[in-house]
């Protein structure tokens, strides 16, 4: 768990990427009215590895992911992407200042996000979804964007569905298009928010396979998931959240191995899918 204590390295210093965490979460709390969903999270997500965020429903893991993507604003604390602050900059005296929308968009464009509900835009084809940001944000020529989009669709095995609208695709296919959409912008980090939770069991496999390939290719992935089997086999780091606190953070062996933290044991009992037990 040494990563957690690693001091943030200023981005200006040309340290090797592996030394600077891909995502650094510092003292993040999140309050919705009276309820404190996140109660001071410190987490470093290493670059080039897959980190899985697990925990019971309501533990705050999705909120944490959304704070990292700056879809939610943390009540206190800061987020840095490869050392660059996202949303708020912190002065040495702890004072937070809001960064410009321009800056937020810039830093955020280095993150890709895959949602539980896919969130494909229904009025655009699969290819249209993938190319949208390339054309409107990156100002690429449409033909170049489409070539790149097709490549991404090929990567998720859907080049023959490019002209289909989301309503004409299965859930698994939609989620793979959503992954291609995120990949098209060449993100440094890919965030997954329970990517298979809305899928029928027979469709989760195709999505998990794509994610496995991505993990194997050395991308930085941060995955919120209920698929403990996937987390245990693909995740290189496991972070366990409970009641808004980060209880455990380490390699699968450290986290799942004996002796287990009592809260984790309880969680696994409730949530563990039977097949995964063998993997641990």
């Amino acid at each position, binding site marked *: 768990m040494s990563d957690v204590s690693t001091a943030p390295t200023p981005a200006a210093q040309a340290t090797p990427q592996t030394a600077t965490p891909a995502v650094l979460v510092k003292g993040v709390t999140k309050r919705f009215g009276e309820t404190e969903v996140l109660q001071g999270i410190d987490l470093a997500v290493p670059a080039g590895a897959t980190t899985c965020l697990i925990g019971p429903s309501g533990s705050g893991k999705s909120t944490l992911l959304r704070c990292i993507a700056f879809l939610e604003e943390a009540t206190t604390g800061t987020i840095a992407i490869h050392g660059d602050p996202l949303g708020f900059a912190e002065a040495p005296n702890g004072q937070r200042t809001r960064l410009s*929308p321009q800056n937020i*968009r810039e830093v955020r464009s280095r993150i890709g*996000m895959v949602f539980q509900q*896919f*969130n494909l835009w229904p009025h655009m084809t699969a290819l249209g979804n993938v190319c*949208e940001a390339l054309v*409107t944000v990156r100002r690429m020529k449409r033909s170049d964007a489409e070539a790149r989009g097709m490549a991404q669709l090929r990567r998720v095995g859907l080049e023959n569905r490019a002209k289909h609208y989301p309503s004409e695709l299965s859930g698994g296919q939609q989620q793979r298009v959503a992954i291609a959409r995120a990949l098209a912008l060449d993100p440094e980090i890919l965030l997954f928010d329970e990517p298979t939770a809305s*899928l029928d069991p027979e469709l989760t496999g195709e999505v998990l396979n794509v994610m496995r390939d991505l993990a194997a290719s050395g991308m930085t992935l941060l995955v919120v998931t209920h698929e403990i089997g996937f987390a245990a086999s693909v995740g290189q780091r496991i972070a366990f959240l409970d009641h808004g606190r980060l209880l455990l953070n380490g390699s699968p062996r450290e986290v799942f191995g004996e002796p287990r933290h009592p809260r984790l044991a309880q969680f696994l009992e409730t949530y563990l899918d039977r097949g995964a037990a063998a993997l641990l």
Partner: protein
Amino acid sequence: MTLDFALMADKMPEILSGLWVTIWTWLVATILGAGLGFLVASARRYGPAPLDWLLKLYVEVLRGTPFLVQLFLLYFGGPFVGLRLEPIPAGLIGLTIYASAYFSEIFRAGFEAVPKGHVEAAQCVGLSRGQILRRILLPEMTMLVLPQCVNMAIILIKETAILSIITVPEMTGVISAIGSQQYAFVEAMFLLAIFYWVLVETCGYLGRLAEARLSKFRFAVP
């Protein structure tokens, strides 16, 4: 009783000109009303809170009073505050403002109906606010609200009949005047009923056609 439509046949040029006035005033008011309604809905969504309250009052007042009264106020009350409009501009402005209130509510619901996740997905790939409005919200909303918009357009076809009361020479005014001249009152009403019925059903048919064409864009429910 017998109906004699031959009396009406002689007046075809006048009747057609009335029909034309009905159609173009309707089209202009519908398009301008939808545009203004969209502006109102956008301002209420993105503008400051006081503007939202003000526009809410605008919408509720227009939706809570009959079009006829609004038109009377504009046309007959207007000159008392220095606003002297000719019948056709008054009719167009009145109908546009009236329509904008209803359209703004349709669009407001449309904004709400676009899943938040679709906007978040756009934020995540770096689209700006304007781009999100233009590229994501507007097109998605259009297909969500199309049926209600067609409905409103149909209501507006019928509301144009009221413009005859401020002497706009549209179909109701022209045909009922001819009916009075020729003492063919019932024939005139029949003719009007048929004309409006055909207009409304045509509009409804075109709307359904458009909906069918857009249906493949409908939401894929995960």
